[in-house]
């Protein structure tokens, strides 16, 4: 039995509500408690330096599924993950995780909740002064008093799952970007979290690693009964693992559904994003003066 160094996480009861925002439909892949959402976001507003990132955003992320959050660059996908984990605070609105309004939690209670989450950062965020082994063992050493033998066993098991058991003595600086992310994934799952959050897990991965990570996301989710939230741009890859996709644009959810439903979604913006088209409601170019005029120096002196 795990001996906790600090207060073990409490397991608040989840509330009961619909898994999808009003007006959206979802065809479930498997039988789940339809009313069980692990994350519920209500009327959330968030802005940075006067620029609005989310406007009245509402969404429900169902328990036990792989949920993908997609959208064009700069739509606040990573920010959404930071809001769910209270790394940043909203201007207004609420975020409920497993039935608890995280705004009302004290720092210690938030830490207790985070012990039930794992997060894979975009760049891995490995601790650069620790070896691969020590990085994965870090949460175990901080939160439990497990014997060294068991820690070694757990760490090796997780590293084996990501294919890096042979890299235990390497330092993070000696790893490639893809390897760093796989080590970070091993660290994220070492405490057997209930909610696993992936921020752009496929960036910089070679096809083999990407396939492994994709299968791992699905396998972890199904075998351990986790809930996974994946932020990604990779439409094709995410379509193979996600049960539900939220497409964000302009600070709001513009479409929700299974990947198959989104492929035929009757919306220009969804078609543009899923098809990777340059022309559409989402401008490819950042607002700028007229191109030829600027090249010929008509409007400017440069």
């Amino acid at each position: 039995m795990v001996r906790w160094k600090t207060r073990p996480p409490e397991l608040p009861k989840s509330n009961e509500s619909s898994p999808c925002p009003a007006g959206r439909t979802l065809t479930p892949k498997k039988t789940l408690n339809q009313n069980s959402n692990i994350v519920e976001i209500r009327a959330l507003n968030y802005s940075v330096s006067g620029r609005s990132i989310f406007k009245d955003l509402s969404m429900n992320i169902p328990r036990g599924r792989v949920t993908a959050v997609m959208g064009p660059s700069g739509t606040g996908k990573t920010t959404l993950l930071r809001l769910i984990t209270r790394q940043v605070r909203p201007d207004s609105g609420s975020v409920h995780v497993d039935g608890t309004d995280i705004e009302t939690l004290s720092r210690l209670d938030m830490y207790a909740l985070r012990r039930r989450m794992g997060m894979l950062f975009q760049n891995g965020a490995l601790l650069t002064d620790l070896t691969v082994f020590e990085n994965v063992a870090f949460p175990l050493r901080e939160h439990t008093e497990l014997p060294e033998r068991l820690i070694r066993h757990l760490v090796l098991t997780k590293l084996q799952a990501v294919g890096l058991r042979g890299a235990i003595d390497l330092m993070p600086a000696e790893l490639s970007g893809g390897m760093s992310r796989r080590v970070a994934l091993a660290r994220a799952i070492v405490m057997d979290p209930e909610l696993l959050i992936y921020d752009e897990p496929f960036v910089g991965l070679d096809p083999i690693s990407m396939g492994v990570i994709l299968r791992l996301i699905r396998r972890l989710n199904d075998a351990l009964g986790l809930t996974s939230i994946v932020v990604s741009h990779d439409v094709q890859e995410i379509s193979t693992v996600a049960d539900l996709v939220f497409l964000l644009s302009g600070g709001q959810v513009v479409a929700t559904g299974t990947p198959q439903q989104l492929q035929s979604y009757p919306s220009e913006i969804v078609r543009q994003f899923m098809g990777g088209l340059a022309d559409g409601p989402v401008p490819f170019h950042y607002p700028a003066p007229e191109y030829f005029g600027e090249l010929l120096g008509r409007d400017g002196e440069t």
Partner: protein
Amino acid sequence: MVRFLLRLAIGSPRALLRFGLVSEQIFNAGAQSLVIIMLSGLFVGMVLGLQGFQLLQRFGSEEALGTATAIGLVKELGPVVTALLFAGRAGTALASEIGLMRATDQLSAMEMMAVDPIQRVVVPRFLGGVISMPLLAAIFSMVGIYGAQLIGVQIMHVDAGSFWSQMRASVGIRDINEGIVKSLIFGVACSLIAVFEGYYAEPTAEGVGRATTRTVVTSAVMTLFLDYLITAMFL
């Protein structure tokens, strides 16, 4: 910064229980600064020996060279120069290390693993600096006195007996206490500024660079300002 200092003070007893983390930082901030501290101490002592000998010779009291250099080093130059060197070597290392941890999401990752980065990263580094500073200042003064002796006794032929006996007779416990108090306070100030600047650095390469520069400048000015205050207090 006062609230930040309070958080460090509250976290310090718990951090001392995990002394392995603190001793690692004493090694980083203290042991790794030894060479620069000893070399600087030696040269400062040698300059004091030369200048002091020239000055005291005018009054025919070269035997007081030991007293003059020892008091100058223990009360003033030891703590102040050590603090300035500490800010330049260990302070910048602390600020840039913590700043880079912020920029590369390592602190956020700790937060996500329910580990308080202030308790795990900042407090041990702060304590490492606070503990190292008086030790480094003592070593600086000791090597400085040896440097002054090297010039005064070995080269300028001041009587060795007079050099050491006058030093022993004139340097009192109050002088040593002043040096200890100064180096402790400088240790708190320089370490606090370094970890504060690093922790709140803008998470960009430019932001970390700015935090590092601010650490050196603020620490140097604060050291000299506090030096004046403590000297006035001990008069």
